[in-house]
Every structure is written in structure tokens, then in C-alpha cells.
């Protein structure tokens, strides 16, 4: 197709040819083309087949209001060809076709519409029941548009930015640009977002005079230049607004162009004030075959010519309801389009200048007429026009029908900002009754049509936005208001909902093939609310995001009910307003995990690392994951465990002890100097949530540890439970400031003795003691003698910066004593042999301190402390039928039950929390939470494993700990 040349409005670059493939055919387009314009230039008219009826579909609008022109591009489904710029080497495939777009083997479906009334699938395919699974497969196959391969990898880089602004203007047309300039004039930082690759909006492609001798296109370019040169305005073009959230958070995505480092980037903008100047799209005209390729909207036809140099047809008929249609008829006729007839739905109200221009060109003009039927089996070849009542008809041969019922504002951003929309009878628009706080509206969406009014309304909105930002603009405000008031107000809108047709082939929603007849069927079935009709007929739920049915559906429903249209309510808009890639939303990878200071050296020593919560930790040091050597070495020699992830806190101040008494179940006033105190925290249900040790470093100055999982929440927890008390204490989370090494095993003292001058003998530093001393005269450590794994052990807390050095020193000093690493799984087995519990493993959300056998930690004599959980502990102390934690041994020692197996009789009585073959005891042992009546020593437990086919294992409840019940090992 030959392009129109020398138009001042063109956005293509004829000197730069781009190559692409469509259905494996090599084609050429121009730089600046969208995929759709390039295809159109190559004579492609049928872009796809429709979802249900496989009707041919083509170019109808240019802003992606329907899925008509969506294609598979470079393996990516549902790419909107109307808004995607052509790039060299692209590969395009049409969607939803069987055969070719022109010869589709499922085209016959169009004749079967009688078998598919609204909601037919709810009423069919289920009788008899056995056909449903078969029908289901067919339904799945028929549904969906594009394809994605399971191993598809999205190429390119996706970025994100989080700019802030005083004023965020949505829409870079004349109103938006005016608003941006007016706000910037007040010294504010403005962000201007425009969906197209350039500023200018609906002025950009129009050669009509703006009233002062320059064309609209020319004045838009001048204004764009002003905006781009204004240092206070940050312009984002090719940027689609997808979300508006309260407190004026606006989300959008920008498409990258040549030279950008990203394919697309996500924008999250926080602004004080938002100006919505998103303009209008056209309201589709409803008549038979209203979506036949060859039928298109005014802006589509005009932009094809002016932006892309493509005359949209040869012989055209116009059926419109707005002056823009008249302007386009004159304009396109001047560019060489033969216009057979212009039918205007309106009886009067047309711009006399435009009527005169039509007459001058001998273009027949029909008042109060409308298209009722498009003909042509694949593409348009004839149009029937009729009077609005349908009494008189005329036919015209043509290959282009420019059809539009009028304008409809793009209220998506307003709707998402929680503005309640209402029908405005003069314009026929849905506009907000009341604007949300600090949200302004400008331009065409108010029904304005005169260029001067549109610009003035933009200026006014910009000034009000400045007032939102706290600027005193009283004078400027009055001036802007006065200026707008003397200019023409909103145009009266065309109210026609449908042409006089039965509606069997009148499509109110293209994406879902929903006809007027379907909507009537839904209404007859009692689906009377628009929202219900949307759900029942699926109208407006496709990739076009209700762009086609959004305005017409509520109007039609209101008309059906015989209501004045004033009661019409649009369906709820949802973000994203435009389909947005998951890759774009994801942006760059945000994962952050924590590693301990000795992460690398553990990894180098063969540590198998696992992500556990926010941390990466060494779980195993044995290839087979059995941990046998690690475990045996701790029992026989000495092992090193990196326990740096433990929560570590300093709590001090005059009321520090009170705070401890509030959250710990034990009496914390009894902590002896130089001793550690083991205790637990409960929640107010008495359920155990944490355990750890507390050290009193000085009067009202404590150092305590929590489990890894609670490290993040503990400061908050203490402050929450003391929030009414006004107590004075400070807390510092030292978790990352200190590393922790647990050195455990019979040889632990020997190793420690080699590296410190401090007396670490049992007499000087007994079990449960706390000491501070130096390692090699340099490294200060806080040391605790604890016994989580059941051996003599020293827990060494050391400033993180010294952690690696201390680790290396100990490994070195321990060589002679058989020191080696052990990981979390080895610790897990070692502590289980001692029946020491891990919160979350042997406890669950509903288990109390009593249930897990730690009730002895609770001190009932401190009710003044109002200890968290104490009330519930008292209430549940003697409660029956609770779960109890027990130890068990297997009857058949060759079988270790799997963790998570059930304890059962005729019903479920509990479950195995952990069970392992104990290398130390040479038999399997485990811990289980069971119903209290089963907790007595000697009780036989039936264990039900998954996939056991009814074959139970048997175990016996035994006393715990399994290993070293007297605790000799840890008190060495």
C-alpha cells in the first residue's frame, strides 16, 4: 500500500524500513509503525478470529480496546498490535484461527449462535454426567487466546522506579499538558504520563484550525516542546497508567525505546495531587455486524491516514454521532477517500462550518440516520443505513464504514481513585459526582470539545492541583476559572444506544462475542444488575478491559429496564487498566537473604546450604544427608555449629526487669549473676511461641536470646505488651551484631582451653554459667554453658566482625581433638535424643506450655506482672483432653517412622513430630504430640504413615530424654 506523503502529522520515518514476518511471510514496515499499521500497510485486513464464533476481526480502534488485533509476537501471546511499535525481525502469528485468518475452518461456528445463548454452558454439557469430562476438554481447548510455551523465557530486562512528585498528570494531550505547565508555573514538581509515544493527544493528528491560524497538530507540537523544555516537568511518554490507589499512588509502565536499558519499566509514583486528563475514546455504534473488518472508529481512520500515512479505504460511509466524525469525513475526503455518504445520528447540533464543508465537497449528508447492518462475508462490501426508527433504509457499497456513536470518557483512573461515577444526561458521560481528595479532572472527559476550553480546563486543574499542594493561588485560580467560564462548555452527547436492530449479530463485546441478544437473554433470566450481566455473559472480561462494552452495557441495561439512563451504573473498573506483563510488574529481583559471617567457610567445608526463613544456613555436612559422622563426632569428640541466626537482644533501663517479667513465664527476678536462665514466652492463649536464655549483665541490664524465627518480632512484642505501662527501658536487636558458635562435645573444654587464658574448668565455669573473657587476648566473647545437644558445650557470642577469625582459631585449635563442623540436621537429631524441643517442630499454634511439658517454667506467683499467657496457663493447667508431647521407641527397631506420620486408633490421636534412627542409641526414637490419655509411659502407639495401605507401625511411650537422662555429659 502506498503511503500518503508530506503530511505534517506523520509519525513514521519512510527512510527507515523494518523487516518482519507475518505467518512466516516476509513483510516490510517503517520505523514509527505499530504492528497494526505495518500489517494494514501490507494489505492485511483480517487480524484474528473471534473467541466463540470465529468471526473475522480487524482494525477497529487504535488504542487496544479489544482483542481483535492481538497477536502472538515472538512467542508472546496477546500482544496488542495497535499499541506495540514495530521492531526489526519481529515474528507475528494471528490468534484463535484454524487454518488462516481469511479461511478459518471454524467459521461455521458463526451460524451456530442459536445453540449458544447467554450462559449456555451452565445449562448444557452436564447431562448425562459422563459427557462433562469430555466436553470440558473441548471447552478448555476452545477457550483462551494466545499460547505460551511452558519453557518460554521472557527476553530482555525489566526495570522499576519509584518517583515522587507534587502533581502527577495522567494524559499528555492538550488538557494534560496545560495542567502540567500551570502546576509547574507554581514552582511544583510535575510528572506527566502519556500512553502514546508522543505528547499531543487528540490534537496530534488533526489539521483543523485551533482558532488562531495554526493547526491543532501544530499547536500540540508547540505545547509539547514547551512541556519538554520545562525543567519542573518530568515527561514519561509511551507510559500506560495501570493503577491509581488511595493517597494518590499511581502505577504505570513505560515501554523502552531504542537506547533504553529496559524493555519495560514499572513506575510507582507517589504524588500529592493527581490530575486526570485521560481524554475520551469512542463509544462503539451498535448495529448488525458492527465489528466486520472494514468497520472502524473515527480516530482509527483518521490516525491511520495522518499518523501512519495509510488511507484507510477507497470508498467510505460514515455513521457517526459527533462533530469529530464530520471533521474526519471532510479531512479524509481531502486526502483522497471517496465518501459515499455521511449519516449523523443527531438530528441537529452539528457545527455549521463542517456541514458547509461537506456540502462543498458534494458529500451526501443524512440527519438522524444510522448504520443498521454491515455486509460482506469476510470484509465489508456494503452498508445499510436507516432512520433511527428503522422505517427508511438505504444501501451503499463501500469498503470502509467509519462508525461511532459518540465519545466516552476514559474514567478508569478516576474510578480506581474511588470516585463514584454517575450518568450525566447532557453529555451522556459517566463522570464523578464528587472528586476524591486531591484528584482533579480536566479536558475532554468533561465533555468539552472546543480546543480553547480543553486547554483552559487543563490550566484550571493545574492551578487547583497547586492549591492541593499547599500553594496559595487564589488570584491565579480566579483567573483560570474566569477564562474557562467564557469559553464554550460541554457539547451535548449523542444518546443512541443501538441502531434499530434485533441484535443477534450486534456485538456489544468483541472479546467475548457477546451480542445484544445475549444481554437480553440474561436480562430475561433475571440477571438484572449490570455487574451480574457482566458475569453471566462475560461481556467486558476480555483483554480489551471493557474498552468496547464499558459504556454501552450499562446504557443498554438501563434502557431495557425502561429507566431513564440516569440510573445506569457502569461496572467496576479494575487495575490494571491495561493488560500488563507479569515480567513488568516483577521488575528486578527483590530477594534478599541473610548470611552469617561464616557462610562461605561453611560452604567451602562441604556445607549443604538451605534457605530457612530469611537466612541461608548450613543444614548438612554429609553428602548422603544422614549426618552420621557429624553426630557421632559431637558425641565422641567435638563439633562446631554456627548459631549466629539466634535472636540476640540487650534490654536495659529502670523498668527492664518489669518488661522481662511481662513476657517471660518464669520469675526473672531470680536470675543469679553469672548464670543463664532458660525460659519461654507464650502468647495470650498460653501457647508457647519462643524459648531462649536470659543473662543479667547488671542491675536492669539483660542480654537474652530468642529462636531464629522470633528474632525479627521480639522488640515489637515487648513494646506491644508494655504499651500501656509507660515503662522506661531500651531494647537493641543485636542479632546481626553478634555471631554465635556452639562448640559442643566431650573435647570442647580442651579446645577452648587452648585459646583462652580464662579458667574454663567446670569449677570456675559450671553448667548454666555465663562468663565474659578474651580469646587469644584479642577477641571478646560472651560465653554460656548450655546443653542443647546434650554434651559439654560452650556457646560463644562474639562481635560479627570477629566471627570468622574465632571460627578459624577454634577449627585450628581443635584439630588435635577431632573437631569438625556440624549442621542443623545433626543438631536436630542430637537435641531430639535429649528431648529438647524446637518451637514449631514439637509445638504448634495450639499447644500450650503445659502441653509440651514445659509448664514447670511458669511461675504462678507473679500475677502482678500480668505475664503474657499466664491467665491461659492457669485456665488450662488441669484441662483434660489436650495434646501432650511424649517420647517413643519403636517395637520394630528396623523401622523409623517418617516425620508427620499420624498416631491413630479409630481416629487420629496425634502425630510424630520427629523420629530418627539414633546412631548413639542404635535404635529409632522420636517425639510425638498425642492426646493426653495416650501419654502415659508404656502406652502402645499405632503409627499411620502415608502410603502405608493400612499397615501400622507400633511404638511405645518411653520416658525422656533418651540420651544421658542424668545429664552427666553436659555437666562435665
Amino acid at each position, binding site marked *: 500500500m502506498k503511503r500518503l506523503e508530506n503530511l505534517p502529522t506523520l509519525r513514521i520515518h519512510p527512510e527507515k524500513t523494518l523487516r518482519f514476518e507475518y505467518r512466516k511471510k516476509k513483510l516490510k514496515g517503517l520505523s514509527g509503525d505499530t504492528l497494526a499499521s505495518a500489517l494494514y500497510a501490507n494489505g492485511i485486513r483480517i487480524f484474528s478470529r473471534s473467541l466463540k464464533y470465529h468471526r473475522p476481526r480487524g482494525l477497529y480502534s487504535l488504542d487496544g480496546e479489544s482483542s481483535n488485533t492481538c497477536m502472538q509476537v515472538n512467542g508472546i501471546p496477546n500482544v496488542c498490535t495497535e499499541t506495540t511499535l514495530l521492531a526489526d525481525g519481529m515474528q507475528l502469528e494471528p490468534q484463535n484461527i484454524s487454518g488462516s485468518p481469511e479461511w478459518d475452518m471454524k467459521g461455521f461456528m458463526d451460524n451456530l449462535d442459536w445453540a449458544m445463548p447467554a450462559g449456555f454452558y451452565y445449562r448444557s454439557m452436564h447431562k448425562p454426567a459422563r459427557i462433562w469430562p469430555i466436553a470440558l476438554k473441548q471447552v478448555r481447548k476452545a477457550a483462551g487466546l494466545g499460547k505460551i510455551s511452558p519453557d518460554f523465557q521472557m527476553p530482555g530486562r525489566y526495570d522499576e522506579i519509584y518517583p515522587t512528585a507534587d502533581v502527577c498528570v495522567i494524559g499528555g494531550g492538550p488538557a494534560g499538558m496545560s495542567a502540567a505547565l500551570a502546576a509547574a508555573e507554581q514552582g511544583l514538581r510535575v510528572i506527566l504520563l502519556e500512553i502514546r509515544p508522543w505528547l499531543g493527544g487528540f490534537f496530534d493528528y488533526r489539521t483543523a484550525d485551533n482558532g488562531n491560524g495554526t493547526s491543532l497538530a501544530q499547536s500540540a507540537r508547540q505545547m509539547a516542546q514547551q512541556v519538554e523544555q520545562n525543567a519542573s516537568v518530568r515527561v514519561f511518554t509511551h507510559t500506560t497508567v495501570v493503577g491509581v490507589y*488511595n493517597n494518590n499512588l499511581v502505577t504505570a509502565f513505560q515501554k523502552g525505546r531504542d537506547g533504553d536499558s529496559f524493555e519495560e519499566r514499572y513506575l510507582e509514583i507517589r504524588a500529592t495531587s493527581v490530575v486526570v486528563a485521560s481524554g475520551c475514546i469512542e463509544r462503539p455504534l451498535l448495529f448488525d455486524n458492527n465489528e466486520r473488518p472494514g468497520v472502524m472508529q473515527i480516530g482509527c481512520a483518521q490516525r491511520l491516514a495522518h499518523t501512519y500515512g495509510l488511507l484507510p479505504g477507497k470508498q467510505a460511509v460514515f455513521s457517526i454521532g459527533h462533530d469529530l466524525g464530520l471533521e474526519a469525513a471532510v479531512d479524509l475526503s481531502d486526502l483522497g477517500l471517496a465518501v459515499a455518504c455521511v449519516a449523523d445520528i443527531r438530528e441537529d447540533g452539528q457545527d455549521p462550518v463542517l456541514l458547509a464543508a461537506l456540502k462543498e465537497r458534494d458529500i451526501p449528508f443524512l440527519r438522524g440516520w444510522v448504520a443498521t447492518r454491515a455486509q460482506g462475508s469476510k470484509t465489508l462490501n456494503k452498508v445499510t443505513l436507516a432512520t433511527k426508527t428503522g422505517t427508511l433504509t438505504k444501501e451503499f457499497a463501500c469498503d470502509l464504514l467509519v462508525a461511532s456513536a459518540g465519545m466516552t470518557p476514559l474514567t478508569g483512573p478516576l474510578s480506581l481513585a474511588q470516585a463514584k461515577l454517575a450518568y450525566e444526561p447532557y453529555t451522556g458521560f459517566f463522570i464523578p459526582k464528587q472528586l476524591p481528595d486531591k484528584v482533579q479532572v480536566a479536558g475532554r472527559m468533561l465533555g468539552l470539545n472546543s480546543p480553547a476550553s480543553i486547554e483552559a480546563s487543563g490550566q484550571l486543574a493545574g492551578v487547583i492541583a497547586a492549591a492541593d499542594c499547599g500553594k496559595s493561588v487564589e488570584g491565579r485560580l480566579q483567573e483560570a476559572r474566569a477564562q474557562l467560564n467564557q469559553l464554550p462548555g460541554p457539547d451535548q452527547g449523542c444518546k443512541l444506544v443501538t441502531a434499530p436492530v434485533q441484535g443477534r449479530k450486534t456485538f456489544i463485546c468483541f472479546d467475548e462475542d457477546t451480542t445484544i441478544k445475549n444481554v437480553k437473554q440474561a436480562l430475561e433470566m433475571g440477571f438484572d444488575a449490570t455487574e451480574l450481566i457482566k458475569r453471566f455473559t462475560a461481556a467486558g472480561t476480555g483483554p480489551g478491559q471493557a474498552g468496547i462494552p464499558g459504556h454501552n452495557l450499562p446504557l443498554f441495561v438501563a434502557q431495557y429496564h425502561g429507566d431513564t439512563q440516569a440510573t445506569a451504573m457502569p461496572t467496576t473498573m479494575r487495575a490494571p487498566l491495561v493488560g500488563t506483563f507479569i515480567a513488568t510488574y516483577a521488575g528486578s529481583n527483590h530477594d534478599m537473604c541473610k548470611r552469617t559471617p561464616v557462610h562461605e567457610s561453611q560452604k567451602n567445608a562441604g556445607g549443604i546450604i538451605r534457605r530457612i526463613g530469611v537466612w541461608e544456613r548450613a543444614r548438612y555436612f554429609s553428602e548422603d544427608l544422614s549426618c552420621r559422622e557429624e553426630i557421632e563426632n559431637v558425641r565422641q569428640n567435638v563439633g562446631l555449629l554456627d548459631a549466629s541466626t539466634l535472636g540476640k537482644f540487650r534490654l536495659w533501663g529502670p523498668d527492664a526487669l518489669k518488661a522481662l517479667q511481662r513476657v517471660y513465664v518464669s520469675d526473672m527476678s531470680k536470675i543469679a549473676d553469672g548464670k543463664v536462665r532458660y525460659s519461654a514466652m507464650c502468647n495470650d492463649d498460653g501457647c508457647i511461641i519462643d524459648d531462649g536464655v536470659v543473662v543479667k549483665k547488671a542491675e536492669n541490664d539483660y542480654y537474652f536470646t530468642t529462636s531464629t524465627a522470633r528474632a525479627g518480632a521480639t522488640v515489637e512484642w515487648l513494646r506491644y505488651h508494655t504499651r500501656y505501662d509507660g515503662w522506661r527501658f531500651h531494647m537493641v536487636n543485636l542479632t546481626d551484631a553478634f555471631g554465635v558458635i556452639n562448640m559442643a562435645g566431650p573435647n570442647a573444654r580442651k579446645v577452648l582451653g587452648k585459646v583462652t587464658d580464662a579458667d574454663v574448668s567446670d569449677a570456675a565455669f559450671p553448667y548454666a554459667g555465663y562468663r565474659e573473657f578474651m580469646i587469644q587476648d584479642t577477641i571478646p566473647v560472651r560465653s554460656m554453658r548450655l546443653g542443647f545437644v546434650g554434651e559439654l558445650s560452650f556457646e560463644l557470642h562474639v562481635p560479627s566482625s570477629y566471627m570468622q577469625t574465632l571460627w578459624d582459631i577454634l577449627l585450628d585449635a581443635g584439630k588435635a581433638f577431632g573437631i569438625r563442623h556440624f549442621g542443623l540436621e545433626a543438631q536436630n537429631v542430637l537435641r531430639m535424643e535429649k528431648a529438647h524441643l524446637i518451637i514449631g517442630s514439637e509445638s504448634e499454634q495450639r499447644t500450650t506450655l503445659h502441653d509440651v511439658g514445659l509448664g514447670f517454667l511458669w511461675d504462678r506467683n507473679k500475677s502482678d506482672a*500480668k505475664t503474657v499467657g499466664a491467665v491461659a496457663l492457669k485456665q488450662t493447667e488441669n484441662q483434660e483432653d489436650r495434646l501432650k508431647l511424649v517420647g517413643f521407641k519403636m517395637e520394630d527397631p528396623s523401622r523409623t517412622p517418617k516425620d508427620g506420620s499420624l498416631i491413630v486408633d479409630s481416629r487420629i490421636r496425634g502425630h510424630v513430630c520427629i523420629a530418627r534412627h539414633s546412631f548413639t542409641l542404635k535404635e529409632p526414637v522420636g517425639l510425638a504430640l498425642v492426646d493426653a490419655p495416650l501419654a502415659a509411659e508404656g502406652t502402645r502407639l499405632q503409627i499411620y504413615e502415608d502410603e502405608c495401605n493400612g499397615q501400622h507401625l507400633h511404638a511405645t511411650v518411653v520416658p525422656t530424654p533418651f540420651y544421658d537422662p542424668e545429664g552427666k555429659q553436659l555437666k562435665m
Partner: protein
Amino acid sequence: MALTLTCPVCGKRNGYEFRYGGEEKGPRPDEADLTPQAWCEYVHMNKCVAGIQKEWWCHKDGCGVWFTTHRNTTCNLEVDTPEAQS
């Protein structure tokens, strides 16, 4: 929605920096003569006001303070003048 809250220390901040701490129910009751019903009421029961409620928040990813504020649960906005408080 994009909740913002006004921390008494740090000012107006993104809502995701905060942790919700429940409806305002007053200080912990005395333990003496406390019935299970009264305790359960304090710990678990909520009014679930659809409107303005006084509630606790912690600026967890900020200064760490716990504070009360009034928020309208039907629009998720903080309110300055909680006359309509129920």
C-alpha cells in the same frame, strides 16, 4: 488501596512500614477474679467496626514505636477528627 499512616515520631509513611496491633481495648485486665469469658473477650473478641475505629499500630520498619490512631475501615484512610467514633 495504598494505606499511609502518621507515625508520631516519623510522620506520614507508607502503610507497609507498619504492623497492625488490634482494636484499642484498654490496658491488660487484672488477673484476680478474671473469668475465662472476660479474658477471651479481651484477647480475641473484636467489634469489627465498619467505620472509624481507634486502633494500635507499630512502626516496625521505622522507629519501632507503638501508637494509636483513628482510621476509617470503609475507606482505609486515617482520620484527624474522630467524632464519629463508635
